């Protein structure tokens, strides 16, 4: 499963994308954030305030409780500031 990061989430983690293979117990977007947080200080820093983290699966916004099964690409990023 490909995970991509943007803006300060990307900067804190120190990479723009990576492939991950979480265990089956990681079922939702929130689970995946929790699992990533265990991977190191830079992840813990990026996800330290889960409330402000936005997620998308395959280019569509999703909620923390959305299941990740079947996702090709999951994105994490801060609230958007376009326009």
């Amino acid at each position, binding site marked *: 499963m490909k995970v*991509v990061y*943007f*803006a*300060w989430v990307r900067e804190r983690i120190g990479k723009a994308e990576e492939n991950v293979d979480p265990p089956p117990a990681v079922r939702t977007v929130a689970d995946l954030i929790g699992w990533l947080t265990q991977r190191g200080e830079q992840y813990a820093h990026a996800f330290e305030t889960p409330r402000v983290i936005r997620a*998308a699966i395959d*280019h*569509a*916004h999703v909620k923390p409780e959305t299941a990740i099964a079947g996702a090709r690409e999951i*994105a994490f*990023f*801060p*609230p*958007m*500031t*376009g*326009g």
Partner: protein
Amino acid sequence: MSVPVTIRLQEADFDTAREIAALTKGRTDIGAVVTFSGICRGGEGGDAIAALTLEHYPGMAEAEIGRHAEEALSRWPLTGLTIIHRYGRIVPGENIVLVVTASSHRQAAFQAAEFLMDYLKTHAPFWKREESAAGTSWVDATSHDDAAAARWAKS
């Protein structure tokens, strides 16, 4: 009849007059054209800004803007719609975003343009980083923009 819809993400600047002309040329069924141009300001509050850099999520940005364009077409009787969003480094005074809406009547054109801007601000995957004398920092999202977008939610 299909409605012309143009969505472009680009580093280059755009020409508002050309975009208006593209939507209206040779047509006599358009009574109203509204344009919104979002421009990079030199300072928010006290600090002078040297430039903004816009990061975006390629693929999702097009998809998300496309979904909102479709929603605008379903909610208002538009005769044409153009959305252009720049990315990369932009200095004060330069354009950031353009929305052009055309309709036979003005209310539809105004409302669709406002709707699209409110959604672009809060749902399109773009992030602004400011450069100033103090260094660079990511622009915070504002609750004001969230409230502006929320007023379009269908009950």
